[in-house]
């Protein structure tokens, strides 16, 4: 589960601070800071770089006991080729995409509807229902795996996309975030539309949603990342390798490729790539999302 919150004011303040700082001249102290930061950042990247480098080595060079070279002595795509020949990596990638997309679309749809209902409409029992939904924020999904598997099994959804996706759609925290955002949108905007006779769905679609772009993006991105990286639930509910998601397939099946390190690292690189790309594209929203709410 993930939570996000845009933070308009903080981001406005930041540039000002940056300007202030950038006028400071380079002193020995700040040179040291820059050097330390740079070295640490480089160090932090070592595991990824090492995996990348290994993945381009021929299997013989990658195997243990070989001298350690930071760059392949001989560049090779052997690891990647075998991976694609096996085919399962592609299957898992597709499964992950399908499941994460279902989760994201459904989460957005259901949570937007519910948040609007809680924010703009009054109905009997609303307080109680909202209270029950909010209480769900505290429930750790890991503590539910046992009975949840039983429920999903009774629904005959084990080893299906729906069984993988639906339990992940339950994200009460998203409702909380969206409702708070909707609450803060001035009613004046809707008034005109209401007077024109627009129903609530129409107001939601043509007034509220256009104003909610950033928050929807943030909720969407975080839901997608969360679903893509979820491990425990798919581990339980995807037993058949043809339905496994990428993290589970890599963890449960691919580990057994054994001592083929170039191939292992190739699958690691390919496994990391989709979300690294997502991260690079949406870096700003993600950083703001984490910073704003303090939660994932």
């Amino acid at each position, binding site marked *: 589960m993930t939570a996000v919150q845009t933070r308009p004011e903080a981001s406005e303040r930041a540039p000002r601070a940056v300007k202030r700082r950038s006028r400071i001249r380079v002193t020995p102290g700040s040179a040291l800071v820059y050097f330390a930061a740079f070295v640490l950042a480089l160090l932090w990247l070592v595991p990824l770089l090492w995996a990348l480098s290994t993945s381009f080595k021929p299997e013989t060079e990658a195997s243990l006991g070989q001298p350690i070279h930071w760059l392949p002595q001989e560049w090779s795509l052997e690891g990647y080729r075998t991976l694609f020949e096996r085919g399962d990596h592609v299957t898992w990638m597709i*499964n992950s995409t399908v499941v994460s997309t279902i989760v994201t679309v459904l989460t957005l749809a259901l949570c937007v509807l519910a948040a609007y209902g809680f924010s703009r409409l009054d109905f009997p029992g609303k307080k109680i229902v909202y209270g029950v939904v909010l209480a769900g924020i505290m429930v750790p999904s890991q503590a539910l795996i046992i009975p949840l598997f039983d429920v999903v*099994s009774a629904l*005959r959804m084990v080893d*299906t*996309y729906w069984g993988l996706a639906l339990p992940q759609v339950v994200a009460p925290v998203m409702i909380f975030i969206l409702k708070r955002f909707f609450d803060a949108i001035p009613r004046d905007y809707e008034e005109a539309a209401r007077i024109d006779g627009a129903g609530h769905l129409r107001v939601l679609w043509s007034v509220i949603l256009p104003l909610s772009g950033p928050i929807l993006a943030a909720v969407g991105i975080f839901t997608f990342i969360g679903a893509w990286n979820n491990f425990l639930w798919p581990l339980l*509910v995807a*037993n058949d390798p043809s339905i496994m998601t990428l993290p589970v397939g890599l963890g449960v099946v691919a580990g*057994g*490729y054994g001592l083929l390190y170039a191939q292992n690292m190739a699958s690691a690189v390919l496994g990391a790539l989709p979300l690294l790309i997502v991260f690079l594209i949406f870096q700003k929203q993600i950083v703001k999302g984490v910073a704003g709410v303090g939660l994932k």
Partner: protein
Amino acid sequence: MRNPPSPPGALSRRALLTGTAAAAGLGLAGCGSITGGIGGGTTVKQWNLLAGSDGAIMTTMHEQFMEETGVDLKATTFAWGTPFYTKLVMGASGGNAADVATIHLSRLQSLSPSTLLDAIEIDELVDAGLDPEDFTPDIWDRCFSDDRLYAVPLDTHALVNYYNRTICEQAGVLNPDGTLLETHGVEEYFDLLRAVKDVTGEYGTSLDTNAGWRQFWAWYRQQDGEWIFHEDGFELDDDKALNAIDTMWRMADEGLCPRISDGGATAANFENGAGGLVQVGNWEITRFRAFNEAQGLDFSMTEMPDFFGNRRTQGDCHAFVLPRHNSWNADVRKATVDYVAFMLQNSFQWGAGAGHTPAYLPVTDSPEYQDLEPNAEYSGVVDNVQFDPDVWFAGSAARLPDEVGRVFAGVYSGANDPETALAAIKDVAQTMVELPNPID
């Protein structure tokens, strides 16, 4: 899985930490189908735990099956033991998983056949060309639960005794025809080991010290020992158990076998001549053959030595089961049973290649198989094989052999003397007896 009872392809703890953790690769079809079953023709999903060298033989047989029948067989090999059985049970409980799976017959009852497996009709088998008469009754009877057939046996496999002919010849323990001298009793066999140890300079026999359960059960059963479990306790013959454990203790103490050796080291010690004999499962034959081709290893195999008056050995059967399905597609069901029949009818390769003794009598009775070497030399294991105790926590890869095996690893290493070990395994057994039975 610190000390699993050394299965084919078992991993040491270190191997785990080094990333060869869970299951082995996906099967053969390699056709990249996305959610199973897409694309023309029938798809049969098969799950197995044959991560060892026998897995390669199975893969070849699968390719032949697909070629002959046009059925798309998608096989998945999971890590041996608990990971496999966990996935099997969870998949079966969900009802959308594998169409057919290989299990150890000793685990059949622990899989709660009535709720987690689909029964097989005799008529289906007959239609596919099999006949109940084609199996020995004692194995066939084990495939039933509540009078319904839930498994079809593929083979019998057991601990056997491999010997390096070059070393054993130097040690003077071969018959003129090149077979290993037959010994009677612990002392005679130890003498043989001492002679071999003199040649190798290291061990007489290289055995898997993590697989103590298998050795214990073989030697305990050679003395007619029984281990019977009741609701609230069990009966174990202390003297006979102590005899078996003492054999381990003395063998390691005298350096006739290694103190610590996992599956990989055990095989390697035999290959590189550190041990002139090795007691492991018949499935290692593929590995030793490959080594023979690569670097030369003149070896043969015989039955478990006579320690206590006979040559009984610990073993099990691989068998096919049909995990529970929410619904069966008639074509898939038929293709699945055909697959089982195909594997049995072609199990000559399974015996010749993987060293297992086929359960299908038309194969083992054939002159071709009778002449097969070295299988003929240990063909007696089928009559001498001893299955694990009949209780829900016993059977291959189950908790009893796992945890008892850990105690025996301590006996080999010298940490547990026989009396301590006996007390420890009784503790382990008592703990398990007290567990609520989740099966029935």
